[in-house]
Protein backbone atom coordinates (compact mmCIF):
# COMPACT_ATOMS: atom_id res chain seq x y z
CA UNK A 1 0.00 0.00 0.00
CA UNK A 2 1.28 3.46 -0.90
CA UNK A 3 0.56 6.52 1.22
CA UNK A 4 1.55 10.18 1.23
CA UNK A 5 3.39 10.57 4.55
CA UNK A 6 5.80 12.86 6.30
CA UNK A 7 8.80 11.10 7.84
CA UNK A 8 7.15 11.59 11.25
CA UNK A 9 4.03 9.79 9.98
CA UNK A 10 6.13 7.11 8.29
CA UNK A 11 7.83 6.37 11.62
CA UNK A 12 4.42 6.16 13.34
CA UNK A 13 3.15 3.74 10.66
CA UNK A 14 6.18 1.49 11.16
CA UNK A 15 5.64 1.53 14.92
CA UNK A 16 2.00 0.53 14.37
CA UNK A 17 3.16 -2.52 12.43
CA UNK A 18 5.81 -3.41 15.05
CA UNK A 19 3.12 -3.34 17.78
CA UNK A 20 5.12 -2.25 20.81
CA UNK A 21 3.65 -3.17 24.19
CA UNK A 22 4.61 0.17 25.74
CA UNK A 23 5.09 3.66 24.27
CA UNK A 24 6.20 6.58 26.43
CA UNK A 25 7.15 10.01 25.14
CA UNK A 26 7.06 13.70 25.93
CA UNK A 27 6.20 16.22 23.22
CA UNK A 28 8.95 18.26 21.58
CA UNK A 29 9.19 19.93 18.20
CA UNK A 30 9.72 18.52 15.59
CA UNK A 31 9.12 15.00 16.91
CA UNK A 32 5.66 15.56 18.44
CA UNK A 33 3.59 14.42 15.42
CA UNK A 34 5.11 10.92 15.75
CA UNK A 35 3.65 10.30 19.18
CA UNK A 36 0.52 12.32 18.42
CA UNK A 37 -0.20 9.85 15.61
CA UNK A 38 0.58 6.92 17.88
CA UNK A 39 -1.65 8.21 20.67
CA UNK A 40 -4.50 8.54 18.14
CA UNK A 41 -3.94 4.95 17.05
CA UNK A 42 -4.02 3.77 20.67
CA UNK A 43 -7.13 5.86 21.38
CA UNK A 44 -9.00 4.51 18.35
CA UNK A 45 -8.00 0.91 19.09
CA UNK A 46 -5.90 0.60 15.89
CA UNK A 47 -2.86 -0.07 18.05
CA UNK A 48 -2.96 -2.21 21.18
CA UNK A 49 -0.18 -0.53 23.17
CA UNK A 50 0.06 0.94 26.62
CA UNK A 51 0.69 4.66 26.07
CA UNK A 52 2.30 6.16 29.15
CA UNK A 53 2.11 9.95 29.55
CA UNK A 54 5.20 11.18 31.34
CA UNK A 55 6.40 14.46 32.77
CA UNK A 56 9.74 14.54 30.92
CA UNK A 57 11.96 12.80 28.42
CA UNK A 58 14.09 11.51 31.29
CA UNK A 59 10.98 9.73 32.56
CA UNK A 60 10.00 8.57 29.07
CA UNK A 61 13.28 6.70 28.70
CA UNK A 62 12.92 5.49 32.31
CA UNK A 63 9.51 4.01 31.52
CA UNK A 64 10.67 2.20 28.41
CA UNK A 65 13.75 0.86 30.21
CA UNK A 66 11.55 -0.50 33.01
CA UNK A 67 9.08 -2.04 30.60
CA UNK A 68 11.83 -3.54 28.45
CA UNK A 69 13.46 -5.05 31.52
CA UNK A 70 10.26 -7.02 32.06
CA UNK A 71 10.24 -8.13 28.40
CA UNK A 72 8.00 -5.52 26.75
CA UNK A 73 8.59 -4.26 23.22
CA UNK A 74 9.01 -0.50 23.61
CA UNK A 75 9.19 2.74 21.63
CA UNK A 76 9.91 6.38 22.35
CA UNK A 77 10.79 9.46 20.30
CA UNK A 78 12.46 12.77 20.97
CA UNK A 79 14.43 15.71 19.58
CA UNK A 80 17.06 18.24 20.59
CA UNK A 81 16.58 19.49 24.17
CA UNK A 82 14.39 16.45 24.82
CA UNK A 83 17.32 14.19 23.99
CA UNK A 84 19.57 16.32 26.17
CA UNK A 85 17.17 15.87 29.07
CA UNK A 86 16.89 12.14 28.35
CA UNK A 87 20.62 11.71 27.84
CA UNK A 88 21.46 10.10 31.19
CA UNK A 89 18.86 7.38 30.76
CA UNK A 90 20.06 6.62 27.21
CA UNK A 91 23.29 5.36 28.79
CA UNK A 92 21.34 3.09 31.13
CA UNK A 93 19.37 1.59 28.25
CA UNK A 94 22.54 0.68 26.34
CA UNK A 95 24.53 -0.43 29.36
CA UNK A 96 21.67 -2.69 30.46
CA UNK A 97 21.66 -4.32 27.00
CA UNK A 98 17.92 -3.72 26.55
CA UNK A 99 16.31 -3.69 23.12
CA UNK A 100 14.75 -0.22 22.81
CA UNK A 101 13.72 1.71 19.71
CA UNK A 102 13.77 5.50 19.60
CA UNK A 103 13.08 7.92 16.78
CA UNK A 104 15.01 11.17 16.78
CA UNK A 105 13.83 14.10 14.69
CA UNK A 106 17.26 15.75 14.55
CA UNK A 107 17.19 19.40 15.55
CA UNK A 108 19.57 22.07 16.80
CA UNK A 109 20.20 22.54 20.51
CA UNK A 110 20.24 26.11 21.90
CA UNK A 111 21.64 28.62 22.35
CA UNK A 112 20.77 30.55 20.27
CA UNK A 113 17.25 29.17 20.48
CA UNK A 114 16.41 27.42 17.24
CA UNK A 115 13.91 24.71 16.35
CA UNK A 116 15.30 23.86 12.94
CA UNK A 117 17.35 20.94 11.75
CA UNK A 118 20.99 20.02 12.21
CA UNK A 119 22.84 16.96 13.51
CA UNK A 120 24.26 18.23 16.78
CA UNK A 121 21.70 16.40 18.94
CA UNK A 122 22.13 13.25 16.87
CA UNK A 123 25.92 13.32 17.10
CA UNK A 124 25.77 13.63 20.90
CA UNK A 125 24.54 10.01 20.86
CA UNK A 126 27.75 8.65 19.32
CA UNK A 127 29.35 7.26 22.48
CA UNK A 128 26.23 5.91 24.19
CA UNK A 129 26.59 2.40 22.83
CA UNK A 130 23.46 2.64 20.68
CA UNK A 131 23.07 1.53 17.09
CA UNK A 132 22.25 4.71 15.15
CA UNK A 133 20.62 4.72 11.72
CA UNK A 134 19.99 7.91 9.75
CA UNK A 135 17.24 7.99 7.14
CA UNK A 136 17.42 9.94 3.87
CA UNK A 137 13.68 10.11 3.14
CA UNK A 138 10.26 9.10 4.45
CA UNK A 139 10.46 5.65 2.85
CA UNK A 140 13.69 4.92 4.64
CA UNK A 141 12.30 6.36 7.88
CA UNK A 142 9.56 3.74 7.62
CA UNK A 143 11.88 0.85 6.71
CA UNK A 144 14.55 1.73 9.27
CA UNK A 145 12.01 2.07 12.09
CA UNK A 146 10.44 -1.29 11.38
CA UNK A 147 13.87 -2.89 11.04
CA UNK A 148 15.03 -1.20 14.24
CA UNK A 149 12.72 -3.37 16.33
CA UNK A 150 14.09 -6.56 14.76
CA UNK A 151 17.73 -5.44 14.83
CA UNK A 152 17.56 -4.21 18.42
CA UNK A 153 16.13 -7.55 19.55
CA UNK A 154 18.67 -9.53 17.48
CA UNK A 155 21.63 -7.99 19.32
CA UNK A 156 20.14 -6.63 22.60
CA UNK A 157 21.34 -3.11 21.85
CA UNK A 158 19.06 -0.03 21.66
CA UNK A 159 18.54 1.39 18.16
CA UNK A 160 17.88 5.02 17.22
CA UNK A 161 16.39 6.08 13.91
CA UNK A 162 17.17 9.67 13.00
CA UNK A 163 15.22 11.80 10.56
CA UNK A 164 16.07 15.41 9.75
CA UNK A 165 13.88 17.93 11.56
CA UNK A 166 11.32 19.66 9.28
CA UNK A 167 12.97 18.92 5.90
CA UNK A 168 11.93 15.32 6.56
CA UNK A 169 9.82 15.28 9.72
CA UNK A 170 7.26 17.69 8.25
CA UNK A 171 7.64 17.02 4.51
CA UNK A 172 5.32 14.54 2.81
CA UNK A 173 6.55 11.93 0.34
CA UNK A 174 5.08 8.76 -1.14
CA UNK A 175 5.85 5.79 1.11
CA UNK A 176 5.27 2.14 0.33
CA UNK A 177 4.09 0.43 3.51
CA UNK A 178 5.38 -3.06 4.17
CA UNK A 179 3.13 -5.20 6.33
CA UNK A 180 4.98 -7.85 8.29
CA UNK A 181 4.06 -10.21 11.09
CA UNK A 182 6.38 -9.06 13.80
CA UNK A 183 8.01 -12.06 15.54
CA UNK A 184 7.75 -12.54 19.32
CA UNK A 185 9.97 -10.31 21.47
CA UNK A 186 13.59 -11.48 21.85
CA UNK A 187 16.03 -10.19 24.46
CA UNK A 188 19.03 -11.32 26.47
CA UNK A 189 17.19 -11.46 29.80
CA UNK A 190 13.95 -10.53 31.52
CA UNK A 191 13.34 -9.63 35.15
CA UNK A 192 9.92 -10.78 36.31
CA UNK A 193 8.01 -10.57 39.60
CA UNK A 194 9.24 -13.25 41.97
CA UNK A 195 12.85 -13.07 40.74
CA UNK A 196 15.12 -12.04 43.61
CA UNK A 197 17.63 -10.08 41.61
CA UNK A 198 18.74 -6.48 41.38
CA UNK A 199 19.64 -4.92 38.03
CA UNK A 200 22.50 -2.45 37.92
CA UNK A 201 23.46 -2.23 41.57
CA UNK A 202 26.81 -0.56 42.12
CA UNK A 203 29.69 -2.62 40.73
CA UNK A 204 33.32 -2.87 41.77
CA UNK A 205 36.45 -4.16 40.12
CA UNK A 206 36.30 -5.04 36.46
CA UNK A 207 32.51 -5.45 36.02
CA UNK A 208 31.87 -2.20 34.17
CA UNK A 209 34.99 -2.52 32.07
CA UNK A 210 33.87 -5.99 30.94
CA UNK A 211 30.32 -4.82 30.22
CA UNK A 212 31.56 -1.81 28.24
CA UNK A 213 34.03 -3.98 26.33
CA UNK A 214 31.34 -6.49 25.39
CA UNK A 215 28.98 -3.72 24.28
CA UNK A 216 31.69 -2.16 22.11
CA UNK A 217 32.49 -5.50 20.45
CA UNK A 218 28.82 -6.45 19.97
CA UNK A 219 28.10 -3.03 18.50
CA UNK A 220 31.04 -3.41 16.10
CA UNK A 221 29.96 -6.95 15.16
CA UNK A 222 26.37 -5.86 14.48
CA UNK A 223 27.79 -4.39 11.26
CA UNK A 224 27.81 -7.84 9.63
CA UNK A 225 24.16 -8.44 10.56
CA UNK A 226 23.17 -5.00 9.23
CA UNK A 227 24.95 -5.77 5.95
CA UNK A 228 23.17 -9.13 5.65
CA UNK A 229 19.67 -8.41 6.92
CA UNK A 230 19.03 -4.69 7.27
CA UNK A 231 20.03 -2.96 4.06
CA UNK A 232 23.70 -2.25 4.77
CA UNK A 233 25.64 0.46 6.54
CA UNK A 234 26.09 2.70 3.51
CA UNK A 235 24.54 3.55 0.17
CA UNK A 236 26.98 4.06 -2.70
CA UNK A 237 25.80 6.51 -5.33
CA UNK A 238 27.76 6.74 -8.63
CA UNK A 239 30.91 5.61 -6.81
CA UNK A 240 31.85 2.64 -9.00
CA UNK A 241 34.40 4.50 -11.20
CA UNK A 242 34.77 7.61 -9.05
CA UNK A 243 37.98 9.53 -8.37
CA UNK A 244 36.20 11.80 -5.90
CA UNK A 245 33.76 10.90 -3.14
CA UNK A 246 31.44 12.92 -0.92
CA UNK A 247 30.52 11.42 2.46
CA UNK A 248 27.25 12.63 3.96
CA UNK A 249 24.31 11.36 6.02
CA UNK A 250 20.62 12.18 6.35
CA UNK A 251 18.21 14.11 4.16
CA UNK A 252 20.86 16.50 2.88
CA UNK A 253 22.26 13.54 0.93
CA UNK A 254 19.56 14.05 -1.71
CA UNK A 255 20.78 17.58 -2.43
CA UNK A 256 24.40 16.40 -2.49
CA UNK A 257 23.42 13.72 -5.03
CA UNK A 258 21.82 16.42 -7.22
CA UNK A 259 25.03 18.46 -7.07
CA UNK A 260 27.04 15.33 -7.91
CA UNK A 261 24.77 14.70 -10.93
CA UNK A 262 25.59 18.23 -12.17
CA UNK A 263 29.32 17.49 -11.95
CA UNK A 264 28.86 14.08 -13.60
CA UNK A 265 27.17 15.87 -16.50
CA UNK A 266 30.40 17.85 -16.85
CA UNK A 267 32.42 14.60 -16.95
CA UNK A 268 33.77 14.65 -13.36
CA UNK A 269 34.04 11.18 -11.87
CA UNK A 270 32.46 11.87 -8.51
CA UNK A 271 30.06 9.92 -6.32
CA UNK A 272 28.45 9.84 -2.88
CA UNK A 273 28.85 7.51 0.06
CA UNK A 274 25.76 8.03 2.18
CA UNK A 275 26.07 6.70 5.71
CA UNK A 276 22.84 4.83 6.53
CA UNK A 277 24.31 4.02 9.92
CA UNK A 278 26.76 6.09 11.94
CA UNK A 279 26.93 3.45 14.71
CA UNK A 280 28.40 1.01 14.09
CA UNK A 281 30.58 3.33 12.02
CA UNK A 282 30.97 1.97 8.45
CA UNK A 283 34.76 1.88 8.69
CA UNK A 284 35.31 -0.85 6.08
CA UNK A 285 33.34 1.05 3.43
CA UNK A 286 35.05 4.34 4.34
CA UNK A 287 38.51 2.75 3.98
CA UNK A 288 37.59 1.72 0.42
CA UNK A 289 36.73 5.23 -0.70
CA UNK A 290 38.53 6.79 -3.69
CA UNK A 291 41.60 8.87 -2.77
CA UNK A 292 39.90 12.30 -2.83
CA UNK A 293 37.27 12.56 -0.09
CA UNK A 294 35.03 15.43 1.00
CA UNK A 295 32.89 15.06 4.12
CA UNK A 296 29.76 17.22 4.41
CA UNK A 297 28.78 17.63 8.06
CA UNK A 298 25.79 19.08 9.88
CA UNK A 299 27.54 19.00 13.26
CA UNK A 300 30.93 20.28 14.35
CA UNK A 301 33.68 19.83 16.89
CA UNK A 302 36.38 22.43 17.48
CA UNK A 303 38.63 20.41 15.16
CA UNK A 304 36.31 19.86 12.19
CA UNK A 305 32.90 18.40 11.43
CA UNK A 306 31.98 15.34 13.50
CA UNK A 307 31.83 12.86 10.62
CA UNK A 308 35.03 14.33 9.19
CA UNK A 309 36.80 13.48 12.46
CA UNK A 310 35.40 9.95 12.33
CA UNK A 311 36.38 9.43 8.69
CA UNK A 312 39.86 10.71 9.57
CA UNK A 313 39.93 8.27 12.49
CA UNK A 314 39.53 5.47 9.92
CA UNK A 315 42.79 6.64 8.38
CA UNK A 316 41.15 8.51 5.49
CA UNK A 317 42.32 12.07 4.87
CA UNK A 318 39.45 14.32 3.91
CA UNK A 319 38.36 17.85 3.18
CA UNK A 320 35.43 19.04 5.21
CA UNK A 321 32.45 21.31 4.79
CA UNK A 322 30.26 22.20 7.77
CA UNK A 323 26.78 23.10 6.55
CA UNK A 324 23.12 23.16 7.52
CA UNK A 325 23.49 24.15 11.18
CA UNK A 326 20.26 25.37 12.77
CA UNK A 327 18.28 25.13 9.56
CA UNK A 328 20.73 27.17 7.44
CA UNK A 329 20.15 24.72 4.60
CA UNK A 330 22.59 24.88 1.68
CA UNK A 331 21.01 24.98 -1.75
CA UNK A 332 21.98 22.52 -4.47
CA UNK A 333 23.77 25.39 -6.25
CA UNK A 334 25.81 26.15 -3.14
CA UNK A 335 26.70 22.48 -2.79
CA UNK A 336 27.61 22.32 -6.47
CA UNK A 337 30.00 25.25 -6.16
CA UNK A 338 31.54 23.64 -3.07
CA UNK A 339 32.03 20.34 -4.87
CA UNK A 340 33.41 22.14 -7.90
CA UNK A 341 36.05 23.84 -5.76
CA UNK A 342 36.81 20.50 -4.09
CA UNK A 343 37.41 18.83 -7.46
CA UNK A 344 39.52 21.79 -8.64
CA UNK A 345 41.64 21.61 -5.45
CA UNK A 346 40.50 25.06 -4.33
CA UNK A 347 38.64 24.00 -1.16
CA UNK A 348 40.46 24.61 2.10
CA UNK A 349 40.78 21.93 4.76
CA UNK A 350 37.64 22.88 6.72
CA UNK A 351 35.07 25.35 5.44
CA UNK A 352 31.82 26.53 6.93
CA UNK A 353 29.02 27.15 4.44
CA UNK A 354 27.80 30.31 6.14
Amino acid at each position, binding site marked *: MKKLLTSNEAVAEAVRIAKPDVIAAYPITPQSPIVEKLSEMVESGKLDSKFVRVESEHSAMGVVIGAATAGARVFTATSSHGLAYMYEMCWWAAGSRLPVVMALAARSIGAPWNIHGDHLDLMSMRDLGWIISVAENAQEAFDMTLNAFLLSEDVSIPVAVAIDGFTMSHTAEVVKLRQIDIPPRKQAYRILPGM*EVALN*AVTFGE*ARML*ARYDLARDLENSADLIEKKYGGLVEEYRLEDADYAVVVTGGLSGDVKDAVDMLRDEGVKIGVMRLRFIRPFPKKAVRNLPPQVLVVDRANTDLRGVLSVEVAACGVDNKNVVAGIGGRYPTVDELYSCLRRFVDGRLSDVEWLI
Partner: protein
Amino acid sequence: MRLEPLFSRATAGSAGETGSWRNFKPVVDLKKCSGCKECFYYCPEGVIEVRDVARIDYRFCKGCGVCQMVCRQKAITMVQEE
Protein backbone atom coordinates in the same frame (compact mmCIF):
# COMPACT_ATOMS: atom_id res chain seq x y z
CA MET B 1 27.78 -10.98 26.03
CA ARG B 2 28.45 -11.32 29.75
CA LEU B 3 25.34 -10.46 31.75
CA GLU B 4 26.81 -11.12 35.22
CA PRO B 5 28.12 -7.53 35.59
CA LEU B 6 24.53 -6.28 35.39
CA PHE B 7 23.02 -8.38 38.14
CA SER B 8 23.36 -8.64 41.88
CA ARG B 9 21.72 -11.03 44.29
CA ALA B 10 21.07 -10.60 48.00
CA THR B 11 23.88 -12.31 49.94
CA ALA B 12 25.72 -11.34 53.11
CA GLY B 13 28.23 -8.63 52.23
CA SER B 14 27.58 -8.85 48.50
CA ALA B 15 30.25 -6.24 47.93
CA GLY B 16 32.79 -8.28 49.91
CA GLU B 17 33.99 -8.54 53.47
CA THR B 18 34.83 -5.30 55.25
CA GLY B 19 38.50 -6.04 55.73
CA SER B 20 40.69 -3.86 57.92
CA TRP B 21 39.47 -0.33 57.27
CA ARG B 22 36.77 -0.11 60.01
CA ASN B 23 37.84 2.40 62.71
CA PHE B 24 35.22 1.66 65.36
CA LYS B 25 33.24 -1.49 65.97
CA PRO B 26 29.94 -1.74 67.85
CA VAL B 27 30.11 -3.96 70.90
CA VAL B 28 26.90 -5.20 72.53
CA ASP B 29 26.66 -5.38 76.33
CA LEU B 30 24.72 -8.62 76.55
CA LYS B 31 23.57 -7.86 80.08
CA LYS B 32 21.82 -4.67 78.93
CA CYS B 33 20.47 -5.94 75.57
CA SER B 34 16.71 -6.61 75.71
CA GLY B 35 16.50 -8.26 72.28
CA CYS B 36 14.09 -5.57 71.04
CA LYS B 37 15.49 -5.77 67.44
CA GLU B 38 15.66 -1.98 66.93
CA CYS B 39 19.29 -2.33 65.80
CA PHE B 40 18.32 -5.21 63.51
CA TYR B 41 15.73 -3.02 61.74
CA TYR B 42 18.10 -0.10 61.29
CA CYS B 43 21.36 -1.82 60.34
CA PRO B 44 22.01 -0.75 56.71
CA GLU B 45 24.25 -3.76 56.09
CA GLY B 46 21.90 -6.38 57.54
CA VAL B 47 24.68 -7.85 59.69
CA ILE B 48 22.81 -8.01 63.02
CA GLU B 49 20.98 -11.14 64.04
CA VAL B 50 18.72 -11.08 67.14
CA ARG B 51 17.56 -14.24 68.85
CA ASP B 52 17.59 -13.58 72.59
CA VAL B 53 20.16 -10.80 72.21
CA ALA B 54 21.80 -8.95 69.32
CA ARG B 55 24.80 -10.52 67.63
CA ILE B 56 26.84 -8.59 65.04
CA ASP B 57 28.64 -10.23 62.12
CA TYR B 58 31.95 -8.30 62.17
CA ARG B 59 33.05 -9.78 58.84
CA PHE B 60 30.62 -7.41 57.12
CA CYS B 61 29.92 -4.68 59.70
CA LYS B 62 31.22 -1.32 58.39
CA GLY B 63 31.21 0.35 61.81
CA CYS B 64 28.74 3.08 60.86
CA GLY B 65 27.36 3.31 64.40
CA VAL B 66 23.66 3.45 63.52
CA CYS B 67 22.96 0.54 65.90
CA GLN B 68 24.54 2.46 68.77
CA MET B 69 22.43 5.52 68.00
CA VAL B 70 19.11 3.65 67.91
CA CYS B 71 19.69 1.28 70.85
CA ARG B 72 17.03 2.02 73.48
CA GLN B 73 18.95 0.24 76.25
CA LYS B 74 22.25 2.06 75.53
CA ALA B 75 23.66 -1.45 75.27
CA ILE B 76 25.98 -0.75 72.32
CA THR B 77 29.27 1.14 72.50
CA MET B 78 31.63 1.95 69.65
CA VAL B 79 35.09 0.61 70.50
CA GLN B 80 38.21 1.74 68.60
CA GLU B 81 39.73 -1.00 66.47
CA GLU B 82 43.31 -1.91 67.35
